[in-house]
């Protein structure tokens, strides 16, 4: 076989021409969407639905040609892939991502007249499609170039910063920005509440998960029962679990005045925290258990041979070796908790979910976005950040264990 490979073959000439079909497909879909769908829409006020505007209408011929030109250049680059071309393409994708908020500024300049102070600019179908397709291209390029995760996280944060600055200083008409300015204090308070609830519940479930997993390793019977209970908890829908905490906690608070003075009651943070911890325990315990079990017996034997005591072996050998998988569990738990905390708004725990449910109630979609987008971004940040951390902590020459679920 090796000899065959070494021989020159007549097919080589066209075989080397392998376009990256992924990028070509993504970029062509983007180009078609840009010209077919509405890029932005303008509505006279908060409730009335908007009037759509296409690419040329929103950005003028110059802008439309500029965007299409960059896209076509990227497509040409991906026809002849190579490390250098991929790097250029990555710069191009970042450039497009950076240009997107400026496109909005141009559109608001052209479409929103100054005599309509209530007018709002909404991002249209094509705009969202372009954003998601560009991010897909970016993921593809990252994978092809095999860039480490932390770099790319930093790059995306840079892009996000530019977006943020544009939205704050130059885009008065953007609906999302208006909604944000109207609820500035409320937003930051909700964000703080959200993050606090998530981090406290994750911290508690790390502690509880570690102790439960250690108990499970000692008592085999306990393991069966505990996994059974945790699995059953997981089948109860999250909103029901939040709801089911209402009664018992209200009763407890009524029985012990001390608890109610601490802020424990049927609604609010206390039931939310309990339900979050209950829901987070299964992924946490499962991953902790797997993490501690997968440490190879030979390594532990070697540690014993070196004269380490039991506690030393646990803290200096087993735990550090288990850390990457353990972090994987923390990542899954945190991402899940960020989403679940949104549901906790239903029982008055606050957080960003409050915007979602208020907005849904008032049919004010900008407000829904104001709640949902930050939750999405928080989840992505937690995912990428903790993922990068476990990459760093993973010993160099071990294989990445298959996604332990």
């Amino acid at each position, binding site marked *: 076989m090796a000899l065959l490979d070494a021989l020159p073959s007549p097919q080589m000439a066209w075989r080397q021409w392998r376009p990256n*079909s992924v990028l070509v497909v993504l970029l062509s879909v983007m180009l078609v969407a840009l010209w077919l769908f509405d890029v932005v829409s303008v509505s006279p006020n908060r409730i009335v639905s908007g009037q759509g505007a296409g690419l040329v209408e929103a950005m003028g011929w110059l802008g439309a040609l500029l965007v299409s030109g960059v896209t076509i250049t990227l497509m040409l680059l991906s026809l002849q892939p190579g490390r250098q071309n991929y790097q250029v393409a990555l710069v191009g994708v970042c450039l497009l991502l950076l240009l997107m908020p400026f496109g909005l500024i141009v559109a608001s300049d052209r479409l929103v007249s100054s005599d309509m102070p209530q007018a709002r600019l909404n991002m249209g179908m094509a705009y969202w499609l372009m954003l998601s397709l560009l991010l897909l291209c970016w993921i593809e390029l990252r*994978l092809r170039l095999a860039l480490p995760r932390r770099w790319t996280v930093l790059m995306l944060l840079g892009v996000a910063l530019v977006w943020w600055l544009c939205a704050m200083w130059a885009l008065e008409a953007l609906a999302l920005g208006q909604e944000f300015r109207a609820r500035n204090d409320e937003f930051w308070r909700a964000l703080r509440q959200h993050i606090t609830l998530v981090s406290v519940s994750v911290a508690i479930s790390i502690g509880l998960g570690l102790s439960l997993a250690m108990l499970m390793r000692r008592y085999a019977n306990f393991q069966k029962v505990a996994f059974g209970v945790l699995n059953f908890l997981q089948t109860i*829908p999250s909103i029901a679990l939040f709801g*089911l905490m209402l009664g018992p906690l209200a009763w407890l608070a009524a029985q012990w005045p001390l608890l109610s003075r601490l802020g424990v009651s049927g609604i609010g943070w206390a039931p939310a925290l309990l339900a979050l911890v209950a829901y987070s325990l299964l992924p946490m315990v499962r991953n902790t258990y797997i993490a501690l079990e997968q440490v190879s017996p030979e390594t532990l034997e070697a540690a014993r041979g070196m004269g380490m005591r039991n506690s030393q072996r646990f803290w200096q050998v087993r735990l550090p070796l288990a850390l990457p998988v353990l972090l994987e569990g923390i990542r899954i738990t945190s*991402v899940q908790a960020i*989403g*679940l905390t949104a549901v906790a708004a239903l029982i008055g725990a606050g957080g960003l979910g409050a915007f979602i449910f208020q907005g849904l109630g008032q049919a004010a*979609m900008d407000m829904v976005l104001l709640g949902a987008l930050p939750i999405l971004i928080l*989840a992505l940040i937690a995912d990428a950040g903790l993922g990068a951390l476990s990459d760093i902590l993973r010993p160099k020459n071990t294989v990445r264990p298959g996604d332990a679920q």
Partner: protein
Amino acid sequence: MSHDALSRSLTARGVQQAKWPAIWLVLLMACVWGFPYADGLLRIIEPDSSQVVYQRASLATLLVQHMLVVSAAAVITVVGGVLAAIVVTREWGRNFLPLVSQVASLGQTFPPVAVLALAVPALGFGTLPIIVALVLYGTLPIVRNTLGGLQDVDKEVKSASVAMGMTSWQTLRQVELPLAAPVILAGIRTSITINISTAAIGATVGASNLGDPIIAGIVNGNMAYIVQGALTIALLALTVDSLFERLQERLRSRLYTA
């Protein structure tokens, strides 16, 4: 262990397992038909409310609607997920493999509530947004398991099938898919079980299903309503999960005895 003994032990275990779906199903039916008459029982949980039995819609109707939503999402995820995984493991689709596996794992990062909320402006209130959210949330386990299952098929087995003169379509249908089936089925099981309980949040955007009693209970502070919705959903999830377990058991025993 000889093949015969193995298959016998598998069937013996199979018989033992067979009772679980039946038990859960009986309990589920007892919940659905029994709650309207369980006034006294529910009053223990909620002594102060004037009404403890959820009466805005019958639990049976809600159960059917719940199952419809979950099955619609399941059909889309199973067909889409398995097809995508098959395409990216073929020679001509291999280019897409890294992106698809990356995106599939990203899908579960999106919280279903956020997806639901984002889908409402585009699709309006009702059943459609919750189906979108479930599809996005349920795709990862199916794609991941199908990819894993197909990639784990022994290279030599595939070469053997090619050597026997099978076309690539025949290899896929008669060799790769049957060998990967248990793993794929495990993915489908995870996806559907998760989605049965996730579907309840659809009630917040006007999709009427078993989440309705739960939301009504939270809004009115009525624990009895919540218990009715939650217990029915949990039992539905357990029934479906144990059915899948049976199915996996049968598939495995067929693979071993064949």
